[in-house]
């Protein structure tokens, strides 16, 4: 059967189960957009290609499937770059499809020509330049396989315009043959035995639960493991939701803005069980003083992560779910009573400082707002965030009990991620409640996608935490730059009017007594709704491990004498 390259592309995408793509047409991908009309795929027209990338990323994270974003050549493709890097840092499976000028024009600085495979080489798991129609089927098949298998990640396919137009025999490749790409699954028995021996000896073990738990679908076996061995579970920012926050063994979030008792547990542990996490600097603090008493077991699918930041005693390279399932029968039941009691004492001490115990002072605190949102939604909404203070408060106070409902840019820390990723997540779960908690700075970076949300009728609720500051930078300037505020004061537009200009119902909230009604209003109103909260301007996220400090050298929130 002879089909055009563009038709072959859509044949392959539909066979990969793609139902929605996020993108933007242009000169170099017009044949793809023309052929699209004949296929049962919903296209979401974004307002900026960065939005398409984050939507596909949000879709992938919420659904566990591969997201797809499209753009034309040149500026279309370069606008994707921030979104590709975001997906790369967080191992999110997204296939990016860009148009490229005709093959015979490559290298000649043709109109809208950019070396996209060159630009994206370091920020993709793999990428392809396709110059002929007969290469498309094999390439798409490989791209999806690479994106979702092993340690997932973004794959980019740059398709020359001639390859989209020319005809070729369409044969769907039944299998993928990649001799240089064979993701590991099982870890060797000898390593499992070594790990089990360390676990048997441990008196103060802590599990470090990362994004890999979600990626590998290991949530259930992790629970079995934690309960059987009575090992407390600390989570990375992206690991939130992989283990229920309400579980007695949950320590909450670790790291720079992690719970104090969680970081204390890690620093005092005699065994760390790192599951699908990569010892990022935001979770370790200074490496030389990180968990000095602990042996370390690292279950990780990417061998280049082993020993990268923290040398480990037993690396188990393989698929987390598979390895943990193999390891579970080799470990004994335990209770670790003394250790859990010690952690409970630390936790009680921290609770005294909790902002939740503060008396009502007439001001809006983000942590309180997030707590109200958590209560109103019974903790079951899909919540995406932007990057900054509001992100940390949401991580701390929206207690995630279920997986794949917490969507945030971790490794890249990409501002502007919140709104588009929420739209993407909504496409993955249209029947579920989707909120995005954003700051006034980040929201304005991709605010244009409000228009996309309206066009698509995306049922996304937007909560802007407006403090008229770039809050996290302001906090660092307060703590580490003698409060010399530099370029952090931000005059914001009237967000309610912006929403109304889009036909989006909106409310401004300035007083604590208005909060619950506003959240209820957003929940009851179908389609996108925007709430602007004028929050306390100069508040700091606590606890905080300053850059360069040991993980247990936290700046703690001052205890208020009037606390309840």
């Amino acid at each position: 059967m002879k089909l055009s390259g563009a038709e072959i592309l859509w044949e392959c995408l539909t066979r990969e189960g793609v139902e929605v793509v996020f993108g933007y047409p242009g000169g170099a991908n017009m044949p793809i957009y023309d052929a699209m009309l004949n296929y049962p795929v919903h296209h979401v027209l974004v307002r900026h290609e960065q939005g398409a990338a984050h939507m596909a990323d949000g879709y992938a994270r919420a659904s566990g499937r591969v997201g797809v974003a499209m753009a034309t050549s040149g500026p279309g493709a370069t606008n994707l770059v921030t979104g590709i890097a975001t997906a790369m840092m967080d191992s999110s499976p997204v296939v990016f499809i860009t148009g490229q000028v005709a093959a015979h024009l490559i290298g000649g600085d043709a109109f809208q020509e950019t070396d996209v495979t060159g630009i994206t080489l370091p920020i993709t798991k793999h990428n392809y330049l396709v110059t002929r129609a007969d290469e498309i089927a094999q390439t798409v098949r490989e791209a999806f396989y690479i994106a979702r298998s092993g340690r997932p990640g973004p794959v980019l396919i740059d398709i020359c315009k001639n390859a989209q137009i020319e005809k070729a025999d369409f044969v769907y490749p039944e299998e993928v043959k990649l001799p240089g790409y064979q993701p590991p699954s099982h870890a060797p028995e000898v390593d499992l035995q070594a790990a089990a021996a360390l676990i048997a000896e441990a008196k103060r073990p802590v599990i470090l639960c990362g994004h890999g738990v979600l990626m590998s679908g290991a949530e259930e076996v992790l629970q079995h493991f934690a309960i059987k061995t009575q090992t407390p579970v600390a989570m990375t920012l992206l690991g939130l939701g992989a283990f229920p926050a309400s579980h007695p063994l949950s320590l909450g979030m670790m790291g720079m803005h992690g719970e104090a008792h969680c970081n204390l547990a890690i620093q005092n542990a005699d065994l760390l069980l790192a599951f699908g996490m990569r010892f990022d600097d935001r979770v370790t603090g200074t490496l030389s003083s990180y968990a000095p008493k602990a042996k370390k077991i690292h279950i990780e699918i990417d061998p280049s992560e082993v020993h990268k930041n923290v040398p480990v005693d037993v690396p188990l390279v393989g698929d987390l779910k598979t390895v943990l399932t193999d390891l579970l029968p080799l470990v004994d039941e335990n209770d670790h009573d003394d250790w859990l009691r010690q952690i409970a004492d630390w936790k009680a001490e921290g609770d005294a400082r909790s902002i939740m115990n503060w008396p009502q002072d007439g001001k809006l605190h983000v942590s309180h707002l997030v707590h109200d949102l958590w209560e109103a939604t019974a903790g079951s909404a899909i919540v995406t965030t932007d990057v900054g203070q509001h992100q940390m408060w949401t991580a701390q106070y929206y207690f995630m009990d279920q997986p794949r409902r917490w969507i945030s840019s971790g490794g890249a820390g990409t501002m502007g991620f919140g709104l588009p990723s929420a739209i993407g997540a909504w496409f993955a779960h249209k029947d579920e409640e989707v909120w995005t908690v954003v700051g006034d700075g980040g929201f304005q970076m991709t605010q244009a996608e409000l228009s996309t949300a309206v066009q698509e009728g995306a049922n996304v609720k937007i909560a802007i935490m407006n403090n008229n500051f770039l809050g996290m930078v302001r906090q660092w300037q307060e703590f580490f730059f003698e409060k010399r505020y530099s370029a952090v004061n931000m005059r914001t537009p009237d967000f309610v009017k912006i929403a109304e200009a889009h036909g989006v119902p909106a409310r401004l909230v300035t007083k604590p007594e208005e909060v619950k009604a506003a959240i209820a209003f957003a929940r009851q109103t179908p389609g996108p709704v925007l709430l602007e909260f004028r929050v306390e301007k100069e508040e700091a996220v606590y606890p905080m491990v300053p850059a360069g400090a040991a993980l247990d050298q936290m700046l703690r929130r001052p205890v208020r004498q009037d606390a309840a």
Partner: protein
Amino acid sequence: MQYTFIALVEDKPGVLNRVASLFRRRNFNIESLAVGRTERPGISRMTIVTECANDLDAHKIEANLYKLVNVIDVQDVSRQPAVTRDLALIKVKAKPEQRAEINNLAAIFRARIVDVAPDSVIVEVTGTEDKIEGMVELLRPIGILEMVRTGQVAMTRGEHAGIRRTPGANGNGWHLHPAAALAEY
């Protein structure tokens, strides 16, 4: 310490760029890199010489190379019985009366004079890096006009194999690996 890796890669456009880009972005230093075809069609072989602080760094290089989809096999032959060779062409300033002297030096190094011009000769020398450095030092006072070197290539002796220290890379245990992967070609 200097480490020498042998990497088998798919012979496809851009693969050299991927490897070079990887070394750059991971902050590894390439001392030399030689690439060429192998006995198998579709597979190229790279010999990469790098400066690493220790075996942990060598592990990082190996493991990162495996992240490239086009890299099929990586072995570290730094401390294995192996033949390593570098080839240099050295153009030396030489009046006719100096040719005999250069010829004598070349003979000691088992080098050859491969081109003679009125004012210069080209010396071809093959060997380990040390040997070539030695030859270069002796030719320098005479006057080196130009020099080109291929960079090191390496091959283990007999049945010896390089070290593959990356756990679980490219399959479940490298020992299952390169033969099985190569068989697909």
